């Protein structure tokens, strides 16, 4: 699939890099013990250290370090056993210290990669440059008062992982696939909840264009995008803007831009002249971060299976389609549910029941899988009844609806309602004889060539059996009797 864009004067290649800020799942902040939980009323999760009171000092939160290493492992990345925290100095009202503690020259995680899958089934590797730990800033609210800005420091000091990709994406689709994949990995690992609306996952997108084969063009950076849609819109807008600019004889200016969600356009935030000089230097209040192989190995042991591994098994061992595998591995809980439900059963049938019936019911009821009244074992139980011929697929759907409404087991419902499929040859044979006898004129028409009536007879037999006749057997016996 070509990712080139046609301009007025020829073709253009898009080059995209992304810096993703992911809030670390942890109880407390990166360098202080106050709560990192989202949603508290303003300035309630602020310790003396977070407020940068005189004489306060940072102390590293080991849990956050573990989460970063775990994420690095999930990105197949190099884990740096030695890393340094640096101060990134600038002034803003939601940055109490007047500097952010980050990592500049020696990040905790080095190069890695993410495999992405596109809608046409092709795969593409996006390299990771590095991952480092840093403090989040507080929040500024400018719209609460005509002449004042309000500052909420709850978020100040919460741990962020900044994940920097290599500039190896070449279309908005690839970028979307990348962020979705990254989010999935983070959620699987439990290191970030990936909630873009709440701001726990945000992206800065770097976009440039170039003639195929030429050197990299000047890039712009658009900051703080918090949805896949906005990321794609930003890329599409920037690509068009840059191509038009260059084709009309202009030059792309290296700058930071902001995306306007109402207009769908980006605009300049600050130019090179206003660019901050962050005066990075190693934070003298902290020692270099070091840990040994044993520390990393322990995390490796506790690592959950990641979506790619599970998908591979689903496709290659269970015979599921790539599409189904994707659906079933979207969330770690979904994959776990499926594994349990399909264990020792027909994998494909279970997959089908989950993605069609179960998800359909959940969507209709507006609830998540976690709240499903039908658990994995229960679904498995239903599938057992289909597999051993106790009920037909059609009846199973009825049973499922009942299961979803009442939370009862399949077997119980089948027994209570007497829905067990009839597979007794003589019983069915008798029913067929009845139907044929009652509809002898139609029998003659069928035998005279009106083959469509076969369906009618099947329907009548099913009606007579209240839907419980084994359809396969009905077909077989009916054909025998009619074609006789």
């Amino acid at each position, binding site marked *: 699939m070509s990712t080139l864009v046609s301009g007025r004067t020829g073709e253009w290649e898009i080059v995209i890099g992304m810096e993703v800020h992911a809030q670390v799942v942890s109880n407390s902040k990166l360098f202080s013990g106050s709560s990192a939980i989202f949603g508290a009323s303003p300035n309630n999760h602020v310790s003396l250290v977070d407020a940068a*009171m*005189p004489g*306060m000092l*940072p102390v*590293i939160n080991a849990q956050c370090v573990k989460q970063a290493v775990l994420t690095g492992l999930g990105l197949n990345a190099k884990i740096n056993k030695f890393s340094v925290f640096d101060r990134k*100095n600038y*002034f803003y009202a939601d940055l109490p210290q007047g500097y952010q503690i980050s990592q500049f020259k020696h990040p905790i995680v080095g190069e890695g990669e993410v495999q992405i899958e596109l809608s046409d089934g092709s795969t593409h590797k996006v390299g990771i440059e590095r991952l480092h730990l840093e403090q989040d800033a507080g929040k500024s609210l400018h719209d609460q008062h005509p002449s004042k800005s309000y500052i909420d420091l709850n978020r100040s000091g919460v741990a962020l992982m900044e994940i920097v990709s290599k500039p190896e994406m070449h279309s908005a689709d690839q970028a979307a696939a990348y962020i979705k994949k990254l989010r999935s990995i983070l959620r699987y690992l439990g290191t970030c909840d990936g909630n873009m609306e709440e701001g726990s996952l945000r992206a800065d997108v770097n976009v440039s264009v170039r003639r195929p084969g030429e050197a990299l063009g000047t890039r712009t950076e658009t900051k703080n995008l918090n949805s896949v849609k906005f990321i794609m819109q930003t890329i599409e807008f920037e690509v068009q803007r840059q191509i038009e600019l260059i084709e009309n004889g202009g030059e792309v200016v290296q700058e930071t831009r902001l995306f306007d969600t109402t207009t769908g356009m980006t605009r300049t935030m600050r130019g090179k002249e206003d660019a901050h000089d962050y*005066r990075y230097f190693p934070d*003298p209040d902290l020692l270099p971060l070091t840990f040994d192989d044993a520390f990393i190995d322990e995390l490796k042991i506790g690592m959950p299976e990641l979506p790619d591994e599970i998908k591979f098994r689903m496709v290659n061992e269970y015979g599921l389609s790539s599409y189904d595998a994707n659906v079933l591995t979207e969330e770690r809980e979904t994959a776990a549910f499926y594994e349990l439900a399909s264990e020792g059963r027909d994998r494909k049938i279970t997959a089908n029941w989950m993605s069609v019936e179960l998800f359909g019911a959940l969507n209709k009821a507006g609830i998540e899988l976690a709240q499903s009244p039908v658990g994995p074992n229960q679904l498995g139980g239903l599938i057992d009844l289909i597999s051993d011929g106790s009920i037909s697929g059609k009846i199973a759907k009825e049973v499922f609806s009942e299961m979803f409404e009442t939370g009862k087991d399949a077997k119980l419902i089948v027994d209570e309602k007497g829905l067990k499929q009839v597979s007794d040859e003589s019983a069915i044979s008798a029913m067929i004889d009845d139907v044929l006898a009652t509809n002898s004129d139609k029998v003659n028409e069928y035998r005279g060539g009106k083959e469509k009536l076969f369906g009618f007879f099947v329907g009548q037999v099913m009606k007579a059996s209240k839907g419980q006749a084994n359809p396969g057997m009905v077909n077989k016996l009916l054909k025998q009797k009619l074609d006789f």
Partner: protein
Amino acid sequence: MSELLKMTATQARKSLLKREISSVELLNAYQTAMEKTEALNNYVTPTLEVAKEMAIEADKTYAKGNAGLLAGLPIGVKDLFCTKDIETTACSAMLKGFFPPYESTVTSNVWKSGGVMLGKLNCDEFAMGSSNETSIFGPAINPWSKIDGSDLSPGGSSGGSASSVAAGAALMSLGTDTGGSIRQPAAFCGVVGLKPTYGRCSRWGIVAFASSLDQAGPFTRTVEDSALIFSAMAGHDQKDSTSASLETPNFSEAVHSGIEGLRIGIPAEYYLDGMDTDILNLWRKGRAWLEQAGAKVVDISLPHTKYALPCYYIIAPAEASSNLARYDGVKYGKRMEKESLDAMYEATRADGFGEEVQRRILIGTYALSAGYYDAYYLKAQQVRRLIKEDFDKAFNDVDVILTPTTPTAAFPIGAEISDPITMYLNDVFTVPANLAGLPGISVPAGLSKQGLPLGLQLLAASFREDRIFSAASAIEKQAEFSLAPVRAAGDLQ
């Protein structure tokens, strides 16, 4: 009254234990002393009501028999230590009216040991200075005077801490030392000042100046007193990541252990051309005293000494420029309301910070800025490592290093303040120890021709304060320095 003031902390403690005197009595004597010496402008916030409560509590513990190490001893605190609900200004307009809702670890340790807080002491603004002249409260004054009677600087930045002890207006006091801010004022005022090994005392709750250099330490009249209060101050603190995870030994033993066989080094590079002859002679005397006491004295070399001062005056301001960024008018302290955030920053910081503080912030920002970081800050840190290596090598051959503390005796107030470089040169003998993180002490050892105190400095390897105390004690014994400044509160002789 003056009998009480004559006692050292060690003597006072013995007396308190024997119930010969009470903490309240002792406090009253110091209260009177503080009143008598008010003109020295040592105290910016006296806390005598709180002190009274603490003294009463201390007496209770003496009655019960569970008195802490410092119970009932009247102690002053440099206004750089955050003291809970007691105004802490760092002697700056920026923090005037700031009442910390928390107590620094070091002061907390002192109060837990039963110490009694006399009040907050004057210092250079944000600890930046060598004369206590940058304080918004005006300079603290040295209780020692020149023959012509002019007011002398007590040194800085812990000027008030040194002066109060010298004047008998505090039995002991707390200061901080980043480039010599305990040792230099101790020398100027004729008292004992200790800068512990970096990491011995927690920095939590001390207004930060230069994070990799700052260290809290005590001012006392005697070496023995220094060991006493230091034992209570020091100790690992989880809240300070640079705090050493070491047990604090009992240093009192070291004070009396003698120095037979101790190896003393005299660094050639501390000999400066045109050095004050009083100081040179005292240094020689010090060497002789130590030999007499049984030490082995040898000449050593610390080749990178001359780079220490420029190195310090890049690193310290650089770290300070970042540490002082939090004083922005947003969260606490001074705020100048303006129409925009930047305007507020500019007005608040221009108004809140004095000239020397602004100067150092500018120097530090420059040294860290793009294009200059490598040439200045990075280079200075690399030189710093060389300076430390000089000491590491030297301490293979010697146990203690002997140098003068300062290049001059106390100078008049106003004499150097207009020339920053001259002021910075005061630190030439003291900054190397901060750069290398080593412990150092200044012991009053003699008088200049003008009758002003001169100090000798002893340095040791990391965490070897025991050797410092032993050697300092030997000097103290031989020097027989009589602490009798003209403007003392009582007859301290």
